[in-house]
């Protein structure tokens, strides 16, 4: 059987024409059935509302609204036809603060520019092959931000059990420090619902 993704429908929103050309070349070569391109957030959202996409690639720097605001539109606008679509954010800024912001706005995967062909396909494989459930809270809507699960996890008190393991030998801390640690532990237990 020919191995293609001919049912895959992708939207790429990036201001840089060369990045759009590169993404189009990559997606077309793997047999994506529908590839649409937009050079700004307005055109991107117009495409998004008029079509049904399986994956969206968006740059973090868009006009007239930012890439994060564009993600907010997809996830939260009443006009959005599918708020659950996997979103892969392309960004020249890959420091932890930018990645955290992207995650907190509901971005599914983060792709630092400049990127290689292999990395683009790896991110695509991640959203297709390993989907994450969505979480809705008062302050967040998007893919589950927890990616790792502890092997030690046995029940609802995972964080507490980890805290208990991090105990300094009594001889290495003063009485005052021990008292402060105990106070902190009580406070944390209170927050975590000990």
């Amino acid at each position, binding site marked *: *059987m*020919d*191995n*293609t*993704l*001919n*049912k*895959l*429908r992708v939207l790429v929103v990036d201001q*840089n024409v*060369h*990045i759009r*050309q*590169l993404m189009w*070349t*990559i997606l*077309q*070569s*793997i*047999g994506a059935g529908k590839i649409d391109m937009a050079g700004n957030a307005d055109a991107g959202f117009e495409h998004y509302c008029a079509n049904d996409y*399986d*994956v969206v690639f968006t740059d973090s720097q868009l006009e007239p609204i930012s890439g994060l605001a564009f993600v907010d539109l997809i996830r939260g606008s009443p006009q959005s036809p599918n708020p*659950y679509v*996997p979103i892969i954010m392309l960004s*020249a800024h890959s420091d932890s603060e930018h990645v955290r912001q992207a995650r907190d706005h509901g971005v599914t995967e983060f792709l630092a*520019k*400049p*990127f*290689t*062909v*292999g990395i*683009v*396909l*790896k991110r*695509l*494989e991640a*959203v*297709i*092959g390993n*989907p994450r*459930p*969505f*979480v*809705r*809270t*008062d302050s967040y809507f998007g893919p*589950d931000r927890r990616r790792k699960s502890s092997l030690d996890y046995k029940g609802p008190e995972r964080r507490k059990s980890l805290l208990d393991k991090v105990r300094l030998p009594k001889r290495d801390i003063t009485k005052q420090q021990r008292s402060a640690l105990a106070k902190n532990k009580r406070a944390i237990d209170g927050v975590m619902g000990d």
Partner: protein
Amino acid sequence: MSAAEPDGSYQLINPPPLKQRVGVGRGIDAELVRRAKTAVDRIRTDYLHRVATTAGDVTHLINATKKPTGDRVNTPGALTRIFRDVQMQAAALDYPLVNDICKSLCSYVEHLDAPEELDKIVVRAHTDALRSVVNNSVTGDGGHLGRALVKSLNELVDKSR
């Protein structure tokens, strides 16, 4: 779509799996990656032409800019945009040396305290380096000479700070 019962203050939702809908065959495997790399190789020639044009554009930009203080120009924003533009495709098209040259210049520009501090000599060294890559069709990291080139650019940038 299955929506789980709310647990406390959050709700877990499982959208329909994409793989069932779009997947045909083995998914994204080594064969698809090879196919994508081959396709991208075809746009490499165009890219080299663009790098050459960029080097010319930068030279033109610097020459056309009024010099407020001696040998210095006031165009860091434009330079960053031009070099970032070239840098974006460099890694994907297997021109890590171009990537390193652009990264070096962008790092220099971004750490300037004031636009007037931009030194034309540093910019010229980077555009000459780009021209050298194009003229010699250097792919990969350029080997020993490529690494030496990047090292000398980084040293020049350090000295200019």
